């Protein structure tokens, strides 16, 4: 296999991590919504924590994306 094809395949494999992060972000918002509907009165106070969890989950997906880009544009 030549370098260019290996590069593209590697970038594609690295992009799987973005999908995994999508599961994480969905989990964060899903769990928040589930519990917010059980106790709507307490939901507003937890919005800061919601976004911290979202930021943490999203960051890992973005790192996967950055890795994919580094592989794709490596010389």
């Amino acid at each position, binding site marked *: 296999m030549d370098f260019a094809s290996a590069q593209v395949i590697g970038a594609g494999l690295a992009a799987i991590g973005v999908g995994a992060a999508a599961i994480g972000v969905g989990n964060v918002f899903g769990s928040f919504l589930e519990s917010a509907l059980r106790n709507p009165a307490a939901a507003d106070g937890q919005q*800061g924590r919601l*976004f*911290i969890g*979202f*930021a943490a989950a999203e*960051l890992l997906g*973005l790192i996967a994306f*950055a890795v994919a880009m580094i592989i794709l544009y490596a010389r």
Partner: protein
Amino acid sequence: MAAEGKIDPMHQFTVEPLLPLHIGGYDISFTNSAAWMLVTLAVIYGFMAMGMQRQLVPGRWQVAVEGLTGFIDNMVSVNIGPEGKKFTPYIFSLFTFILVANLLGLLPFSVVGIHPFTSTSHFSITGVLAVMSFSIVLIVGFWRHGLHFFSLFVPHGTPKVMIPLIAAIEFISFMVRPFSLGLRLFVAMIAGHILMEVFGSFIVSGFSGGPLGWGVGLLSFAFIVGVAALELLVCAIQAYVFALLTSLYLNDAINLH
């Protein structure tokens, strides 16, 4: 730009010098990045100046400005407490700068005639913002608590045996903060813009193809409308997350934990 079917999504992020300027071997040209940061500043200044009327019965614009300042003020006082009041201006400038820079970068090609440049899509910009937040946290922490600030690395109630391990982990997570802060914003912007660029070029190359290509173009068009709406949301969320995390880190430095 899609030229002859070749997609080059990275072209939009090139920093081009508008006014070349070299002093003492350093390249300090006035670039499109700097120009768009100035535009950002002008937009923020205009928005604030139009709203700061101090009328007893506020007009629409004043309500918008008061809503924005009230939002940041509330976020800071909830996350830091009464002592965070003096950091409100910093968090506010951070939030408005990131938000407006993100939104300006989303402007379509034809609205302003020249291709808008997202200054927040470069790690050199977001990294500096993150380092600024991080150094404020360090300065405030050491100023208020002296060497006691290091107790940040040992949470309350840690068993004696676990202290070295926990301290090492906390130290790493503390030192990673500026990188994660800057990286998140910059990668989120890059990813969104690449996505829009790629699907935009699908539309162009799709419509220059056969009937099947028109289908692809239409689908891409429908998709890109959704993505553009999502990007507006992401712009706001990234600015909010940056400001929120900065205020949380400041809370760590002020109140220890």
